[in-house]
């Protein structure tokens, strides 16, 4: 870690200019692109969040901050909390399943086989989302394969209610987001020199400690990237909870989408989006920096 700043100080003045050009070349295109096709449109949402809804859902240009006040309603905050807990749970389960999986693939000797395994993870997700979710409904149904196996082996005498429960929601979410955890974890673990692990095993004489003190810290960038890619999108997820959980609760995603569609209250939907984005962005940046520092 300490080696990086040192090499920066040693830079000669001529390399400085080269460096500026490099930064411009690497970052410039994306910066311009996102300014034009993301930040600029985002201003629209920002402006809308201060407007009012007309009787028929049209925009009324009366500036006010009431939309932001409305967000802090216990009803909405409890929905936000529920989505947060679910996303966190999903992230943890994904991490536990994906880590050993990514580790195993990363250690496969043949690079071609590694790439093949990586693609095989993604192929199921090239089918349509709705169809995959319906397939889960078949699997979890009262007369579905899981219940059939459990009944036939005599483990249970009554079919378990799996579908339209919280369990089904978690299964569906983990299924949908697991690859988002596997890919960055794999990318981070694959570059680790595994002889370090073996050396550590020798030193600590305990595989768990070797994992905790060597492998896990070294793979931290992957853990962070993976949890960001799983946590954030699953915070807004609502189609899976609706289809597998029975839509008996509201998620933050339903709430915001509903403001833009069913209620046609774009200003409130915009305000909600802006606040949510600020909160999550703040948390992400802190998480990322903290994670970065522990390395």
């Amino acid at each position, binding site marked *: 870690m300490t080696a990086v700043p040192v090499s920066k100080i040693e830079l000669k003045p001529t390399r400085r200019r080269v460096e500026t050009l*490099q*930064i411009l070349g*690497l*970052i410039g*295109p994306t910066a311009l*692109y*996102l300014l034009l*096709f993301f930040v600029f*449109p*985002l201003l629209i*949402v920002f402006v809308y969040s201060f407007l009012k809804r007309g009787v028929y859902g049209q925009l009324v240009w009366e500036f006010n901050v009431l939309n932001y006040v409305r967000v802090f309603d216990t009803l909405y905050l409890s929905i936000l909390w529920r989505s947060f807990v679910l996303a966190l749970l999903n992230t943890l389960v994904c991490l536990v399943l994906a880590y*050993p*999986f990514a580790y*195993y*693939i990363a250690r496969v000797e043949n690079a*071609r086989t*590694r790439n*093949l395994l*990586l693609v095989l993870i993604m*192929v*199921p*997700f*090239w*089918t*349509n*989302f*709705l*169809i995959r979710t*319906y*397939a889960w*409904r*078949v*699997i979890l149904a009262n007369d579905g394969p899981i219940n059939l196996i459990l009944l036939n082996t005599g483990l249970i005498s009554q079919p378990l209610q799996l579908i339209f429960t919280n369990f089904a929601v978690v299964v569906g979410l983990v*299924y949908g987001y*697991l690859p988002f955890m596997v*890919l960055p974890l*794999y*990318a*981070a673990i694959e570059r680790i*020199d595994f*002889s*370090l692990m073996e*050396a550590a095993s020798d030193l600590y004489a305990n595989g768990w400690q070797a994992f905790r*003190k060597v492998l896990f810290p070294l793979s931290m*960038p*992957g853990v962070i*990237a*993976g949890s*960001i*890619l799983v946590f954030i999108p699953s915070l*807004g997820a609502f189609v899976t909870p609706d289809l597998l959980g029975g839509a008996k609760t509201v998620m933050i*995603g339903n709430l915001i*989408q509903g403001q*833009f569609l069913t209620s046609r209250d774009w200003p409130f*939907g*915009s305000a909600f*989006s802006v606040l949510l*984005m600020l909160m*999550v*962005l703040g948390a992400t940046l802190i998480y990322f920096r903290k994670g970065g520092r522990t390395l």
Partner: protein
Amino acid sequence: MSSVTTSLAPAAKVESATALPRRAISLTERLLQVNLWLVFIFFYAPIAVLIIFSFNSGRVVSQWEGFSLAWYAKLFSNRDIGLALYNSMVVAGVSTVISTIMGTLVALGMERFDFRGKLSMDSMLYLPIIIPDIAMAVMLLLFFVQAGQLLARIGFGFSLGLGTIILAHVAFNISYVAVVVRARLADFDKSLEEAARDLYANEWNTFRYVTLPLIMPGILGGALLAFTISLDDFVVTFFTSGPGSTTLPLRIYSMVKTGITPEINALSTLMLLASMVLVLGSLALQRK
């Protein structure tokens, strides 16, 4: 922490391997293997169900009524769904290529250099992942419509279609690619690049022969992620599409009025088959 392990590295490489007791490895190893298989079963269990139901004679995707190839026959006579598949492939393919290149470059820049405005750039890179789909979709539609009208006045008018969908997909896919590639680049060992430079390799050759191969797994992972997200996106695609640019998800979500039929299972099965053939085929070609 990391400084300790780094200093261990050279010594470890030589000594380890043989010193470890075989049994300890094989237990962990076995657990890892079990996990591997369980995760793969988890990934493919719904796919198996999906494939089985593509041969259902019934109309419903969750009740087996008998074997039939009727849905495949229907699929092949359906011109519209072919067009939707084509549109989806164009959107996912083009947006993946563009966002992978830009995302990789920006990841290199962000991990390599410190500069003023880095925090803003960081925020700008995360926001497309954070923003609720619907907000991004509506704002991009408003933006494209306004821009189209403005440009039309100076004679460069465009209309909503595959082009605008691709622009929108690139806007969120850059971020996904960048996050994955950065996970690969963090704490990147620069000594290899420096060694290459010391050997008088120029910047391009250093990048081409040293850096790129090292970060390739990250790029591949990012590209796969981008392609997958793009192929399955509904909300942003719906709002940025125009006449004649309906993609597969738009078509399928819109089947709610009449019910989703095993025709979509048949299509998904064929797509799976095609991707498997492509993957294994390219693998076989590489082997030669």
